[in-house]
C-alpha cells in the first residue's frame, strides 16, 4: 500500500476507536448496573440508562463552587487524556495513525494524567469529602498503576520493544508461559480496582463520602467526569482481553473486533457480579491487598525474565 491511503486508514482508525469507545462505554456501564441490580433482586435500570444520564447531565446547570481555573479545567483534562489513550490504542491489532507516536510508557503516563485531573478537581473544590476522596484515589493509583504496567511489561519482555502494537499483540498467548497465567490471574484480581468498582470504590464511596472527588461537580462538568470513568472502565476491561486472548484472525477486521468486544462484555458481566457480591474494603485493607498483588506480579515478571 502506498503511504497516503495507509495514513488515511490510520486516521480513520483513530476516529473509529474514539467512536467505538464513546459509543460502547455507557452501554457496558449499563450492563454492570443491570447485573448488580439482578444479583440484589432488583429490576435495575434499562441498559441505556447511562446514556440518558449523560445526556441529562449535559443539559443541566453547571455549578462552579470555587471560581478558580483548576476546578473548571479538571473535567476537561480528565476526559481529554482518556480520549488520547483511546486514540493511540491499537484496537484488535490495528495500529492507528497515532500509535507510532506513543509507547507503553507514554500510555501509562497518559492514564496517570487522567487521575491527576480528577485529583486537581477534587483539591480545587474546597470540600472536605472531596479531599478525603482525593487522598484515597491517589493512594489507590500509586498501588494499582504499577500492576497495570507490569501486565504490559510481559509484552515488553517478550518483544524487547515498548511499541504498543508489539507490546499488546506481539506475543502469541502461549508465548507468555506460566508467568503469563499468573499475570492473567493478577489482572483479574486487580480488575475491580482498575475500574474503581466495589470492593475498591473507596475513593467515591457514595455511602460515606457522597462521591468523594466529584462531590462538588454537577451538570456538564460531572457528565465529563462520568464519561471519563466509563471510558476508563472500558479501557481496563478491554486491556486483558487484548493482551492475553488471541485474535481469531478471521481475516475480517470487523469480525476480530466483534469477538473482542463480546469478550469485553463478558468481563463487564464479571465486574458486575464481583461488585454486587463484595463489600467495600477500607483503604488500609486495600493497600495490603494491592501490596500482595504487586509482589506476585513482580515475581511473575522476575520469572518471565529468567525463563
Amino acid at each position, binding site marked *: 500500500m502506498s503511504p497516503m491511503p495507509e495514513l488515511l486508514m490510520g486516521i480513520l482508525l483513530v476516529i473509529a476507536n474514539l467512536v467505538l469507545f464513546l459509543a460502547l462505554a455507557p452501554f457496558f456501564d449499563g450492563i454492570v448496573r443491570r447485573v448488580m441490580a439482578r444479583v440484589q433482586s432488583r429490576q435495575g435500570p434499562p441498559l441505556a440508562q447511562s446514556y440518558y444520564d449523560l445526556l441529562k*447531565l*449535559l*443539559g*443541566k446547570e*453547571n455549578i*462552579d*463552587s470555587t471560581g478558580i481555573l*483548576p*476546578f473548571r479545567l479538571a*473535567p*476537561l*483534562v480528565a*476526559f*481529554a487524556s482518556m*480520549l*488520547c489513550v483511546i*486514540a*493511540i490504542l491499537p484496537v484488535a491489532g490495528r495500529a492507528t495513525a497515532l500509535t*507510532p*507516536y*506513543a*509507547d507503553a*510508557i*507514554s500510555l*501509562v503516563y*497518559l492514564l496517570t*494524567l487522567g487521575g*491527576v485531573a480528577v*485529583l*486537581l478537581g*477534587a*483539591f480545587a473544590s*474546597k*470540600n*472536605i469529602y472531596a*479531599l*478525603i476522596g*482525593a*487522598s484515597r484515589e*491517589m493512594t489507590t*493509583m*500509586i498501588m494499582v*498503576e*504499577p500492576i497495570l*504496567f507490569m501486565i504490559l511489561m510481559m509484552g*515488553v*519482555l517478550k518483544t*524487547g*520493544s*515498548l*511499541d504498543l502494537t508489539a507490546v499488546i499483540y506481539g506475543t502469541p498467548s502461549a508465548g507468555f508461559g506460566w508467568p503469563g497465567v499468573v499475570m492473567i490471574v493478577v489482572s483479574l484480581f486487580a480488575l475491580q480496582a482498575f475500574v474503581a468498582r466495589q470492593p475498591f470504590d473507596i475513593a467515591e464511596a457514595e455511602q460515606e463520602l457522597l462521591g468523594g472527588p466529584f462531590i462538588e461537580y454537577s*451538570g*456538564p462538568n460531572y457528565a*465529563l467526569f462520568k*464519561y471519563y470513568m466509563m471510558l476508563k472502565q472500558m479501557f481496563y476491561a478491554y486491556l486483558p482481553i487484548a493482551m492475553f486472548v488471541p485474535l481469531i484472525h478471521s481475516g475480517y477486521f470487523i469480525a476480530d473486533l466483534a469477538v473482542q468486544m463480546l469478550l469485553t462484555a463478558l468481563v463487564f458481566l464479571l465486574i458486575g457480579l464481583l461488585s454486587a457480591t463484595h463489600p467495600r474494603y477500607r483503604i*488500609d485493607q486495600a*493497600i495490603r491487598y494491592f501490596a500482595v498483588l504487586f509482589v506476585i506480579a513482580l515475581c511473575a*515478571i522476575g520469572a518471565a*525474565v*529468567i525463563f
Partner: protein
Amino acid sequence: MDFNIYNGLMMGVLLLVASAIVIPLFARHRKLAGGLNFVVCLVAGVIFTGVACQVLTGAAAPATFDLHLGGWAVPLMIDGVSAVFMALISLMAAVTAFYCVGYMEMDHYRHYSLRGFFFCYPVFVAGMIGIVTVDDLTTGFTIAWQMMTIASFFLIRFDHHDKVIVRSANKYLLLMELAWVAILAVGLMVPGCTWGSSLHQIAGQLGLVDPGLRTLLLALTLLGFGMKAGMFPLGQLWLPDAHSVAPSPISAMLSGVMIKTGIYGILRTLFWMTPDNMPTQELQHWGMVVALVGVVTLFIGTSQAVKQVDAKRLHAYSSIGQIGYIIMAIGCARYFLGPEVGLHALALLALFGALCHTLNHAVFKGLLFLCTGSVQYTTGTKDLDKLGGLFGLMPVTAVVAGIAAIAVSGVPAFSGFTSKWAIVGSALLSGKAVGIFVIFGIIALVTSAMTLATYVKFYGMTFTSVGVEWNEKNDIHEVSASMLAPKLLLAAVCLVQGLFPFLFVQLFGRVLATSESAMTRVLGTPEMLSSLAQSYAGVTFRLGDSPVAFSLPLVMIAMLVVALLFALWLRKAGGAEERTAPVWLCGYQTLNSANRYLSSHIFDAFKKFTKWTGGNVRGA
C-alpha cells in the same frame, strides 16, 4: 583557542571573587547591593556560557591547562561535560540572584545585615564553577570544594538567630568536610599521585594497583560525591535539614545546582577515573552497585517526600528522589557498557536520560523552591497545614508552580517526562540480558506515581483547596514583578525543555563529541548516535532497525489540545447555564480551620504503610 577558554574561566571567577569583596561594602543599600550582585552573576554567567558554547561547538575535547598559583599547580579541564554544568550553574545563579533582590526584602530578614550574604553568594557560585572545571582531587579540588562548602554554609545559616537553623548548617558543614576528607584521601592514597595530579594520571595509576585497593579508592570517591549528591543514606543526613532552612533562593541553588556537582563527580568517577585496563566485569559490578544505590535512593527519597508537611522539606526529599533517578541511570549506563555490544545503545539512552534529568531537575526544582519562597514571602509560612487557596490570590505564581509540579511528576509533554522516559526505558529494554534492571525500572515507575502524589499534595494544599484565610497574615497578594520575572523565565525554559527534547539530543551529541574517555569513544560514533533518532516532534530510540521507544511531546500536546477542544465542545453542547455558588457544607456554612482536611491527613493509610522508609513527620 584553548588558552581563550581558560582565560574566560579565570576572568569569570576573578570577577565573582572581586565582587565578593566589593559588593558587601554597599550592603546597607539592600536593593543596590542585590542589583550589583545580579549584574556580576549575569556578566560572569555570560562569560561562562560563552566558554561553554565555545567548548561545545569545538571539534574535539579541548586540551587541559595547568594553572600555577604560587608553587601549586592546579590542573584544569573544560570538556563537554564541564561545559554543560557550567552553563547550568550560570543560568541558575543569574536567575536566582535576580530573585534575591526582591526576596531579601522580606520582613523577616529586615534586621539581618546582607554583608555576609553578598560576600558568600558569588564565592558559592565561583566554587561550583571550580568543582566542574578542576581536574584533580587534591589542590584545585580542595580550593573549589571549600569555597563552595563554606560559602554555602554561611548562606544556609543566614537566619542565624534560630538555633535549629544553626544546627542544620553545622551538620551540613561537618558532613561536607567529611566528604572532602574522603575524596582528598583518595587523591593522596593513589600510589605515585600527589597534590595536583590530574584525573588522567590517577586513572592510569589505578590501573596498576591491586584490585582491593582500587575498590576501596573508588568507593571512597563515590561516597564523597554521593554525600554531596544526596545519595541514600547519606543524603538524608543533611539534605532535608539544610535545604529547608536556607533562604528560598539559596535552597533553589542548593537543590537545583549544588547537588548536581555531586552527580558530576559520580559521572567523572565512573567514566573518567576508571582505567582503560580495568576488567570489564569489575566495571559492570560498579555499575550494578551504583544503579542499586540509585534505585534505593529514588524510592526511599520519594516515599519520604510524600510524608512531609513543610513545603521546603517536601521539595528537599523529592530532590533526593530525583537525584536517585540520575544515579540509577548512570549506574545502568556503566553496566551496559560491558562486553555485550547489543547493550551499548541502551547505555546511550540511559546517559541521555541522566543528562536530561540533570538539566530538567535543576530548572523545575529551582522553580519550585522559588515559588515556595514567594509563598513564604507573602504568607509568612511554608507549612502546608496552614496554606491553601492561594490560586485566587497569587495566580501567576500558582500557574508557574503548576508547570513545575507537572514537570516534576513527569506528565507527558512536560519536562520531566522525556528524561524519566529515557531512564525507565533504558532499564526496561535491557529485558532478559539484565533481569534485575527490569525490576529497577518498575520500581522507578512506581516511584514516579509517588512523586505525583507528593506534588498533587503540595499543589493542592498550597494553591487550591482552602486554608490561608485563617493564617496570621491577612494581606496576601501576588509578589512583585521583580520576583515574578525570574520564575516566568524559568517556567519558559521548563516548557521548552519539555516540548523540544531534540535539543537535548543535539546537546548530548556535542557533549560526547567534545569529551574524551573510553565511554565517549564507544558512544560517540555516528552509528551509535543514530539510534537516538530525533525530529522536531521528539525523540525515537531504535534498537537495530526498528524503533522501540518514542517520546514525542509535540504530538502528545497536539493530541491533548484537540481532545480538550472536543471536551470543551461537549461541555457546551447541552447549552447548560453556568452559575457560581459557594460550597454547601451540610449546615456548617462557614468552613474554618478547625474543620478542614489538613495536609498531614492526606495519604494517611499510605503513610502508615510506608512507615518503614523513615522520614516520618510526627503527628502527621
